[in-house]
């Protein structure tokens, strides 16, 4: 009896340990993150000595981390209210942006790949965005065409937004996510 109890404890321990590794390294690592509203970044992921979680995530999905000196990348899987980004809903991304020479906004699926669309448009760069008189911008994410900065979305499925800053001072001082002034993501309707 004692033997089987010990065996059971061992198996539960092994399964829990492997499960934790799988959970913390599949998709995006939950460790070493800095959050700002719906946006999450991994400042250590692009450093020469990343934490073991960032290293394991890169080994699993094959993404190429952006080197810290080149820029900084943020991902959002929810809107600013905390609801999962979904192709069946329309979103407005807008507001001011922090200082960077260039930045881009890219729409991806949950696995990190761009879904094909008729326009062949997967994102906007800071250079090409239309802005209002005060320099603010709004990007409309919707399956159906919109006037202005329209980013075509797949009609369904979970979405990920990627905000990439290049040649930015952001990466050097990131004690906390607060006050970064990143764009907000507002749901404007669902089908």
């Amino acid at each position: 009896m004692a033997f089987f109890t010990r065996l059971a404890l061992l198996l539960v321990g092994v399964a829990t340990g492997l499960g934790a590794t799988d959970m913390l390294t599949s998709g995006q690592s939950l460790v070493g993150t800095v959050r700002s509203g719906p946006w999450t970044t991994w400042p250590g992921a692009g450093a020469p000595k990343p934490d073991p979680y960032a290293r394991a995530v890169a080994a699993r999905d094959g993404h190429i981390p952006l080197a810290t000196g080149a820029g900084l990348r943020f991902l959002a899987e929810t809107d600013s209210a905390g609801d999962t980004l979904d192709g069946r809903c329309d979103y407005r991304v807008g507001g001011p942006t922090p200082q960077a020479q260039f930045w881009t906004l890219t729409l991806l699926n949950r696995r990190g790949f761009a879904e094909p669309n008729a326009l062949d448009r997967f994102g906007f760069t800071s250079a090409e965005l239309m802005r209002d008189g005060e320099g603010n911008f709004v990007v409309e994410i919707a399956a159906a065409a919109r006037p202005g900065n329209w980013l075509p979305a797949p009609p369904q499925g979970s979405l990920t937004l990627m905000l990439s800053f290049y040649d930015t001072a952001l990466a050097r001082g990131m004690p906390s996510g607060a006050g970064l002034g990143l764009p907000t993501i507002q749901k404007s309707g669902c089908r």
Partner: protein
Amino acid sequence: MKPVQPREGRGVRILLGGLAVLLIAGIVHIVSLLATPWWLDGDAYAVLTRFDREPLKTVVAAAADKTVFPYRDPALATAFCLYDLASGPVRVSLDVAAAEFGAVSVHDRRGQPVYVLTNRSASQGVVTLVLMTGAQVAAAEAAEPAEGSIPALRVALADAKGFVAAQVLAGFPSAEGLAEDMAKALACKQNGD
């Protein structure tokens, strides 16, 4: 009094069992986490070698295929080359004179960036660096004259193998062709120094 004793004993046993499970789970988690990069070959270097195994050749196919690397920025034109320092130092150069933003990043065998230069560090429009092992740096320093021409930036690497990524930003869709041509011009050559 009598029934209390075994209940306490059971409580201690459950607690000990729980601690044992946590301890085992912690050890398994740490070991499996550290082992993940070694037993999985899904990292960027392994993916690139599926396209081309030949070192120093500029590879653009892996970047052109949008289903290869996740979390890629479509505004960045990208080209790669693999390096192997076993056969000597490698000189990497990228002309970014016409680029709004361009970066050359050096990645280790696991795909992690270990060094990066952007167009801000370009000399006469060209970003140049020489990849070396620690021993090759020491040999180059011993061989060079005390006063002479300024050598190219040397990057001492712990891993002999890895890859270089050239990334050039296209601010507008109309600039994509130009950015791709610039990235494709990534040059990785043997024995640069």
